[in-house]
């Protein structure tokens, strides 16, 4: 049967795969190869394109601004990551609890911020953290405190960005955790209840260990999403004050599109790509792919 159909099926296979493959090649693989090629040139996105060997890479490894942007991105990621994973986990446990009614409405409410564009997420949170007429500063004043300069102090500005990012992603990761929790067999919980395990004990001794693969997935997804934070920042600080919230993707865009250093931007992109992939790989190794 198979040999008789063989050729026709191979042709059908290519017919089905071709549209995706052609578009993916044009807009992903070609840019990837282009990026490698251009990283050895001084291409300005217009006319100049000379081969300059490893000059971009040499320049890059001694570029203090590059290290600063990268370090800033890492600090932001490390600071935000625990919240990105723990908050949705706690929320998911809450909205899957047997004693909670109207679960659907509650889940929808928490999920809603995940529907907004990153830009609008930034704007929504930024509106609350306005220095003069923002709600948060108003409440601080009402309680007799001193209003904070959220946009001018770089630590506070980074906090606002992290807060916005966490707010918007909680619903999405909550849904992933709910999936994980629903996969845990109810018998284990029943056995624990019979053995007289308290809710807190059950959470730490059963829920957390059983959710390890889900937690790994959420950690991996949030790490990558934090490392490439960009549009959200445009709704809050646009990278300021100074360059204090300019993370690595914005740094690449500034070089490529504002300063027209496409060759140099390509070199940074490749180095960043390798760094991101290595981080994902290390996380994968440490957690053993999420297996217990």
């Amino acid at each position, binding site marked *: 049967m198979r040999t008789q159909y063989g050729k026709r099926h191979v042709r059908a296979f290519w017919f089905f795969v071709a549209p*995706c493959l052609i578009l993916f090649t044009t807009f992903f693989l070609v840019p990837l190869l282009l990026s490698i090629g251009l990283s050895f040139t001084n291409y300005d*996105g217009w006319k100049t394109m000379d081969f300059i060997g490893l000059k971009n890479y040499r320049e890059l490894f001694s570029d203090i601004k590059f290290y600063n942007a990268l370090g800033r991105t890492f600090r932001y990621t490390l600071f935000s990551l625990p919240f990105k994973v723990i908050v949705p986990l706690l929320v998911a446990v*809450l909205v899957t609890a047997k004693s909670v009614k109207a679960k659907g409405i509650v889940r929808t409410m928490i999920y809603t911020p995940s529907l907004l564009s990153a830009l609008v997420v930034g704007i929504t949170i930024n509106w609350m953290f306005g220095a003069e007429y923002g709600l948060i500063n108003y409440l601080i004043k009402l309680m007799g405190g001193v209003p904070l300069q959220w946009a001018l102090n770089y630590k506070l500005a980074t906090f606002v960005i992290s807060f916005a990012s966490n707010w918007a992603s*909680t619903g999405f990761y909550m849904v992933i955790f709910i999936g994980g929790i629903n996969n845990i067999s109810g018998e284990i919980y029943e056995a624990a209840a019979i053995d007289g395990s308290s809710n807190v004990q059950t959470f730490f001794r059963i829920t957390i260990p059983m959710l390890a693969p889900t937690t790994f997935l959420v950690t991996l*997804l949030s790490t990558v999403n934090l490392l490439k934070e960009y549009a959200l920042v445009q*709704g809050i600080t646009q990278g300021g004050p100074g360059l204090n919230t300019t993370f690595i993707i914005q740094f690449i*865009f500034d070089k490529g599109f504002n300063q027209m250093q496409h060759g140099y931007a390509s070199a940074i992109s490749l180095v960043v790509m390798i760094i991101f992939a290595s981080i994902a790989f290390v996380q994968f190794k440490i957690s053993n792919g999420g297996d217990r």
Partner: protein
Amino acid sequence: MSRKPYRTGKTLLPTVLTFVVALAFLFPIIWLVLSSFKETGELFSYPLKMFPSKFSAGHYQKVIRDGFFSYIYNSFYLAVVGTAITLVISSMCGYALAIYRHEVSYTNIIFGIFLLGTLIPGETLTVPQVTVISELGLYNNIWGVILPVVTTTTGIFMFRQHYLSIPLSFVEAARIDGSTEVQTFFRIMLPLGTSSIVTLALFSFMWRWNDYILPLLVLSDQKKYTIQIAIKNYIGFNGVDWSSILAASVMSMTPIIILFMILQRHIVGGLAASGVKG
């Protein structure tokens, strides 16, 4: 069990607590929406009040005068056309990768190529991507924003997983009845993928509607701007035009929230099962 007498007591407190948490998550959106109906004077004067003293649609009128209906139209066009293409091509591709896995020896290699798309963040390729778009003559063209993003590994993966779960005997039976490969897919197998289609449709629509980076870099003519770019333009060098941006933001989030409310029963279930990536 002897729990019955305590039931209301057992559920009331946790339910109230959960509602408070959920309300806290929704609050920034509520605050944004209520603020968008306040008059400019009220937005910037103390004391701040929860509700506008007089509901005013003034900011919305201003934003509409700025051409927001045409930006909404552009975003709709982008999202609908992009989603339609995504659904057709990723269902075809995912189907082929699943159904021909025994007959075509290199299906896994091709699948592996698409998986590169999840390993490498698209943002690191944006600079050369824009070069490709310009070389193809798609700069300042809506297709330059649609075509680069319609192939999603998530979509291909979803359909592949779905068709792996359907027995190959379905396909064999159709073949014996004399159906061609293309007919088998469109008439028999595609209708079996409805749950994946609905889920991917909503996500794809949302991704395209919310797209920011490519439209910003590719569309230079103001007439072609999408809603996100129009919103961004209210953030100037001298600060933010808050009274306009509040109304504009509300206008941009409304369609997605309505769509989600309509489709959510199909979505959240599908989401929990497959863990769709954003």
